[in-house]
């Protein structure tokens, strides 16, 4: 397998993985915002930072 193929395959793999991660994280965040009835961006960021 050529170097281009290896690098390219890794990029494809990480791209798809990144998209999946973003969607799953977003879904979790949406549910959390709804559950805790958070409103402004500041409240949400504060809650996320606290969670992480």
């Amino acid at each position, binding site marked *: 397998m050529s170097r281009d193929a290896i690098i390219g395959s890794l990029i494809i793999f990480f791209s*798809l993985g990144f998209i999946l991660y973003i969607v799953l994280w977003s879904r979790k965040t949406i549910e959390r915002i709804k559950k805790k009835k958070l*409103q402004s961006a500041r409240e949400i960021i504060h809650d996320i930072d606290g969670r992480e």
Partner: protein
Amino acid sequence: MDENKSQISAELSRELTLFHITMMGLGMMIGAGVFIGIGNSISLAGPGGMLLTFSLNGVIAILTALSYAELSSAIPKAGGAYNFARLAFGRGPSFTAGWMEWFASSVAGSLYAVTFAIYTIRYFEGLGLLNWLPFSNQIGEKCVAFFIAVFFLYINYRGASETGKIGAFLTLGQTLFLLFIGVLGVIVVIIDPSRLQNINPFLPNGWSKILITMGFTYVAFEGFEVIAQAGDEAINPKQNLPKAMLYSVLIVTFTYVAVAFASIIAVKAGSPGVDGPVWEWIGSFKEKGFGEAVSRLIPFGNFFLTLAVIFASVSALNATIFSATRASYALGRDRMLPKFFARISPKRNTPWVALMYTGGIVIAVALFLPTQDVASSASIMFLFLFFLVNLSVIRIRYNMGDELSYGFIMPFFPVLPILAIVCQAVLAVLLHHVSLIAWIIAPVWIVSGIGIYYFYSRTRAISTADEILVLEEEQSEPEEEQYSIMLAVANPANALELTRTTYFLSEAKNAKVSLLHMVPVPEQTPLSDAEKFMMEGKEGIIEAMLCLVLRFPITTTIRYCRNIARGIVGAVKEKRTDMLILGWHGKPKGHLFRLGSTLDVIMERAPCNVAILKGLGNQKFKRILVPTRGGPNSALALELAGVLAEKDDAEVVSFVVKGIKSKVDAKKVTDTIFERPHINLERIKTKFVKSNNSAEAILKECEAYDLIILGFTRDSLIRQFTKETVCHAVAKKCSKPMIIVKASGGIRSWIKRWL
């Protein structure tokens, strides 16, 4: 009953679930880009480059989808980029956003029309049916593109649409078909690993070509932004709009990569007709490369593929036409463009002028530009549009982050939107390698738009009530325990007639009553604008209400919806109605619907008791017949009969028809029902008859009665499709006043629930 409840409110019917709006985005995205893009991109970037193209475009798309998701959750009202830019930067950039969106959607529509034409001509050419044509296939493609565009412009003018459940399932089918192709590709590789050699060389033309192919295939990833326009009609928009956008990009990216992979390995190297590397062979067909590859992968591949492309492209064409029309309509409505753009057809209630101008762009681009230039023009305009949206999300977060109520915010802010801006700028710049025409058209359009704004719109734009569009969802008040009856009126002229019976029932139940009038609005017109011109329905119901309010305390709601049945069912659920009452003219339409397309759906789906009144007028009833079969519907029928009998001092007869050879104990049927609460046994007599034809027996008995109250059938779904039910047979033929009832929770089969 509480007094002075007489008020009229107008509301929009929220009918679209997460599934519907996700399919809406998917339907727009899977339109043409992938079908056209595979052949063109593989010829430039090679097999590995094509896979990288779709993967990396997916990443850029998800970055912009995050911006749209955040903004839509904070500003769920319909409008999309036009509203976002207005909030962020004011009217000038807002006009530019709407102006770009109009052109971008129109050009995308051209692409879908051209894609439909290419694959249709390709299919018939393959069957040898086009040899007689006196002109080339290219001219044939242009002709077909013209006619399909005109057809869907007409469909949009009429207000018809394939949206709703049918459209959603068509999109689901298309997506599953493409995923099936992807899965098939993986299976083929497992069976014959030598096919992986098709991927070598991975990047025959180097890394530099990838950015170019990403540019002109980016149009395959536009479509999720249309979900933002569903803000007025989506259920739980703050949560569902962002989810739908992100899900649609996720599904589409994985689908495209799978399909691209399957295309590469579809053909074995050295097969008949394949000279040289497989990727070069696919690339030689340009926009038809995908079709050529996949048709060799599956039996009857050519036919299924053509079918899939046709469905995908017409679905996306229909959606982009009304999306583009809405964009120009909004500009006309706000006087940023001449006000004739906002003109609504009095007959069709569609924005016909905006539609006409949109059609002009769609047809002109489809006819006069080569396919690659069409795709590039669409891509570049969307890149500029998304560039503006990514800027808007940054500005709005910084300026208004504490004021808005967000349902979602993106991670790694502001790195991700800045990254999106940079990537989109790079892709847009590099597109000049593919299409110089696109790089001329796009700036000309934008600059002309800026000119129109400065010399025309700036002094004429009107301030709208939602200049700053921050719409909170109404908090519903805690529901009272009082029994709730809703009377849904299609024809205000019938309201008084229906209300008399409704009022008797509400007195007996000590219920509160609301009057609901549904106004269907075509897809082409935003629901939020319907109230301004749908005066016909409003005036009629106001007249009825003014008449009624003197006699009955009643609240009135006018509800704007896409589909009457869905709107009524939605209203019932939202207002937690215990009983829904409707009128029926007594003439079933067609053989597919028993009572009518609206009533059948309501009877199936309304989660409450339902009573349909036919021909009751203002009569008094002395003899009431209730055909009884057992079950909750019969029990409800007897309960209602008891209420009406009490009012008019009438006699009620529970009529049981038993089959001649049936061994069922008919008396047991009635005894079981009579044990239920709310049934007034004092007024009920029972009559038993033996007959093998229940409908005939009931119709014969009806003659001696003033009113028939019938329970809706409980026959199985299959039986209902193959044989007319008793209820429907009686309802059609009986000329007496009638009430058809269905109890909450009656008629359920999992098939019906799913359908």
